[in-house]
């Protein structure tokens, strides 16, 4: 077989493969649910109900989508420039650590200043974490996939050390957790009484900001040019190395914000289970969104709904909640294939 580019894809050509990809994902999930002894329709119904069935469920879904919007944006920004950042997990924890360092009483500032300081510091921390692998890539040609992946393990061990040592809560009954943030460092709730914090709004603002950068700024244009063809971009006079480093700072900064938002908005303190893999799930979010910043918001809501829904489905139907992870991984694989098929025709030799 060989692939033949389609000069002008029809409307159906652009819509059908992604629709089939989503369909195939649900078929895989249905088969697996049946293997586990569940009725697929009941299982999907329970997932839907768990994600959107009540005010509490909807707020839970929005809260769960928040870190995924940040990490999804981080990945989308990086992947668009073909900077393979698989280290959003470490960058997220870096943002969380700095938030805890600044926000547990070391400084006392009025709330708006405190929050701004923590957010900016978290962005810087995340950005710095990715700068290392990005420099290794641009200076020495070391593949950033492996270095960012390996660095996740290193940084999590570092966080584990901090939580058992310098950042350990003296009142924590021996648990490896940090002290709680002071009230000035906590992101308030959007509406009093509803469990949804301003981190969600911040995530939406971040998505719009990335969209503006992508479409309206020179940097956005340069990032895409480098991603499409680095050699041609260099030939056209774009400073490729600088663009890659700027991309890394932006991507790492966005992932760092996820850590700030989770600690300051949701948890109030840092533990080792702050992120159940938001950095990795961000890859799925970004790919499902076709790397589009506003699409990331939609994809993050979809992914969060499946996670939140599967959690409550698992309790009710006895089908393991790992079904959600399988659905997302297969959606990712089917979707990259579908996107290819919107642009290419498969021909037999």
């Amino acid at each position, binding site marked *: 077989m*060989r692939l033949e580019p389609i000069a002008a894809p029809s409307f159906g050509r652009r819509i059908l493969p992604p629709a089939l990809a989503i369909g195939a994902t649900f078929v895989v999930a249905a088969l*697996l649910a049946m293997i586990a002894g569940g009725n697929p329709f009941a299982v999907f119904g329970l997932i839907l109900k768990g994600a959107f069935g009540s005010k509490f469920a909807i707020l839970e879904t929005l809260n769960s989508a928040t870190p995924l919007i940040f990490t999804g944006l981080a990945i989308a920004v990086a992947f668009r420039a073909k900077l393979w950042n*698989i280290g959003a997990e470490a960058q997220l924890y870096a943002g969380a650590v700095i938030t805890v360092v600044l926000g547990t009483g070391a400084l006392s500032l009025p709330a708006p200043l405190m929050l701004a300081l923590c957010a900016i510091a978290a962005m810087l921390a995340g950005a710095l974490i990715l700068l290392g692998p990005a420099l*290794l890539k641009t200076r020495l040609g070391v593949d950033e996939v*492996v270095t960012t*992946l*390996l660095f996740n393990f290193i940084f999590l061990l570092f966080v584990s050390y901090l939580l058992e040592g310098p950042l350990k809560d003296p009142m924590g009954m021996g648990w490896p957790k940090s002290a709680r943030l002071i009230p000035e460092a906590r992101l308030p709730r959007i509406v009093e009484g509803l469990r949804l914090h301003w981190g969600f709004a911040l995530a939406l603002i971040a998505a719009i900001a990335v969209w503006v950068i992508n479409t309206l700024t020179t940097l956005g244009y340069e990032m895409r040019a480098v991603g499409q063809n680095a050699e041609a971009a260099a030939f056209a006079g774009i400073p490729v190395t600088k663009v890659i480093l700027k991309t890394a700072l932006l991507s790492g900064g966005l992932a760092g914000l996820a850590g700030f938002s989770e600690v300051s908005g949701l948890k109030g303190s840092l533990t080792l289970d702050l992120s159940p893999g938001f950095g990795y799930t961000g*890859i799925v979010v970004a790919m499902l969104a076709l790397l589009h910043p506003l699409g990331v918001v939609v994809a993050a809501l979809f992914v969060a709904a499946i996670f939140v829904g599967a959690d409550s489905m698992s309790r009710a139907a006895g089908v393991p909640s790992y079904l959600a992870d399988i659905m*997302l991984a297969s959606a990712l*694989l089917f979707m990259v294939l579908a996107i290819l098929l919107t642009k290419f025709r498969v021909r037999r030799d």
Partner: protein
Amino acid sequence: MELIDILLSASFWAAAIRIASPLIFATIGELICERAGVLNLGIEGIMVAGAFAGWIAVWGGLPLWGGVAVALLTGMMLGLVHSIFSVPFGLSQHVVGVGLTLLATSLTFYTYRVVLPEVSSPPKITAFQPYEIPLLSDLPLVGPALFSQTPLTYAAFILAGLTALVLYRTPLGLAVRAAGENPQAVAAQGLSVTAIRMGAVVVGSGFMAVGGAFLTLSAFDSFFFDMVNGRGWICIALVVFGAWKPGKAVLGAVLFAAFDALQIRLQQTGIGAVVPYQVFLMMPYILSILALVVMSRRAEIPAALMVPFNKGER
């Protein structure tokens, strides 16, 4: 001096060889994929799936070697998935690999929960026992270190030797290497680049899964969710460190495993009382990154690695 005592003890080197074994299987598997031109980032997930598949098969009544075969087949099936996406369709090997790792890992955990719904601790199996090779195991120091290992460890070293033999001494090996260096030349010979690359990914993935199964069938006797713990990513670094050559890759794996065995022992010495244990646990990952940095200047990387091949394109 404690360090010298450790380095001169047979048990230390025996541990290093044992720790190296799963890395050798998986590194050789990755090396085969990369020599054919395909970066297989599914390795971490394939190792998880192999560890589980081999263990659950033995728990279900198969003999130990049957478990190894089940792991091999599981890895080959996952490799087939990877290769369909990455070779004929030429999709981003980064995205496909990470996607396959997520898929294989979640499928494994799902299956675990379906097969063993109500267990608090996973059941144990009777794992491979050390087999002392007659005469050789009586040698001082090297005997207990090299020749009193489990059969799967011997298999790892034999596999590495056979891989080197096939890669460098057979037409098949030449075709695999050429597919990773100059696929146009392979196609010009009338051979199918697609078939060679897919075959390499399928076979390589099978070996990765056996590397995972080493953990459950030989190193330990049970399956835990986080047991692979980044070993797959470390193997990717080991392939680079070994300059894409089987012999050097094995040497790298043993060297790496020796450091790992050393850090475990140093934790129990005076140094371990001062330095936080997390620093020791970080060492394997830091060493891997260092290895990548040190080796980055060498230009032995297969020329067509990560370059999809579409016939007719130049």
